[in-house]
């Protein structure tokens, strides 16, 4: 019983008592909107759907995501954006991809954090108010439980994609060969010596790395090795396969695994010694 209570306490502390710098969530907020625009905006410009309901919905999408990006009335705009992207995802059949689902989930999670306390117009306005009133500036700190959900979401992406590949057809490298024939047709791959072995090595490495990333990113000692390995993996996916925003989203969301205080201090250190003109 005591062990269970201790576990519950740890779960509560880890997930719900994570009060730290809001710079990570501020950066994710901006990056997410840019990614979701690059994925959807072309299909949502007003001329695409001239019905009044379509114009209204698409205008609301651009309004709320725009406000979220610049960080104005961020609490409201990010919740509005989360509701709208969830609706859009469900009504547009062409949006129903894994990578857009990831973006939708993360927009919902980031809306649960005080993501407007850093890198936002809200922050700038708050600083201006504090300057006028002579009070200290508001802290860039908040409860980041949404960031924990993002971390869990990323782990599950790695875990379940790895799980999906646990069958002989993939581990033998045959499915990698099929991808080569599918996207890079024109070469006689069968005549290349060691091609099948190379595909098998790629397949096993990918699955191993996915399982390591699913759990290892939580462990600081492993993180410094796994994060660059994960970035290389995603960059290769991006260059070799038509996966669009998925790579950039995953790399951006690695911020959820880096302690927010480290990100805060890293940015502080970058500005050290800067003297405004």
């Amino acid at each position: 019983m005591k062990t269970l209570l201790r576990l519950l306490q740890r779960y509560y502390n880890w997930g719900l008592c994570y009060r730290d710098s809001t710079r990570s969530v501020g950066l994710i907020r901006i990056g997410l909107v840019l990614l979701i625009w690059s994925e959807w905006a072309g299909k949502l410009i007003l001329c695409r759907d001239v019905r009044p309901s379509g114009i209204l919905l698409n205008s609301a999408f651009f309004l709320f995501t725009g406000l979220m990006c610049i960080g104005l009335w961020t609490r409201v705009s990010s919740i509005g954006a989360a509701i709208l992207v969830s609706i859009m995802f469900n009504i547009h059949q062409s949006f129903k991809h894994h990578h857009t689902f990831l973006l939708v989930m993360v927009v919902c999670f980031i809306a649960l954090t005080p993501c407007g306390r850093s890198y936002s117009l809200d922050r700038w306005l708050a600083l201006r108010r504090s300057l006028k009133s002579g009070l200290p500036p508001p802290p860039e700190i908040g409860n980041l439980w949404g960031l924990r959900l993002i971390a869990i979401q990323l782990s599950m992406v790695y875990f379940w994609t790895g799980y999906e590949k646990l069958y002989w057809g993939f581990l033998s490298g045959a499915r990698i060969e099929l991808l080569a024939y599918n996207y890079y047709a024109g070469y006689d791959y069968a005549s290349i010596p060691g091609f099948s072995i190379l595909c098998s090595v790629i397949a096993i490495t990918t699955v191993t790395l996915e399982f390591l990333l699913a759990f290892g990113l939580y462990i600081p000692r492993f993180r410094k090795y796994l994060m660059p390995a994960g970035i290389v993996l995603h960059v290769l996916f991006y260059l070799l396969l038509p996966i669009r925003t998925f790579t950039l989203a995953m790399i951006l969301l690695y911020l959820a695994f880096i302690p927010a205080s480290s990100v805060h201090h890293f940015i502080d250190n970058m500005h050290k010694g800067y003297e405004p003109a």
Partner: protein
Amino acid sequence: MTPANQYQSDKTAMEEIAESKLAIVCRVVAFTLLMLYVVFGPFYKQVLKGRGNLFRSWQMYHTRGIDVCDVQFYIRHPDERIEHIDHLQVLGRDKLLGSHHHSRRIMGERGVLRVGQRIRQKMGGAVDLRVNARIGTRDGWKTLYVDKRIE
């Protein structure tokens, strides 16, 4: 006060702010429900093979490459000599450039026969055009044709 010290004192101050019990309970419930959705949604779809759109699986690229064919066309001459032919070259397409991957690859049994018939039209009906082909399946390559004559 340095930025680092300011940050630490702000953090301490924030930790001391008391929150209402209702807010804490709501947060615990929301966090737990969302976490369960993220963790067990794919379990429901991928392990239990559940249906419906409420939950999502993480099966990326699991159908890509299925039905793609590895094809080798060749002519069997009357003296039993075999002459391999490059179907893209015969059909007047650049082997690697100038076309989308959709038009370079051959998909499915019908695709193999269609390309075979186009080669036959180009080369004339008198040649003994044959094909060896294998097709991509979820479990890997499966033999489709061995020394099949294109009619």
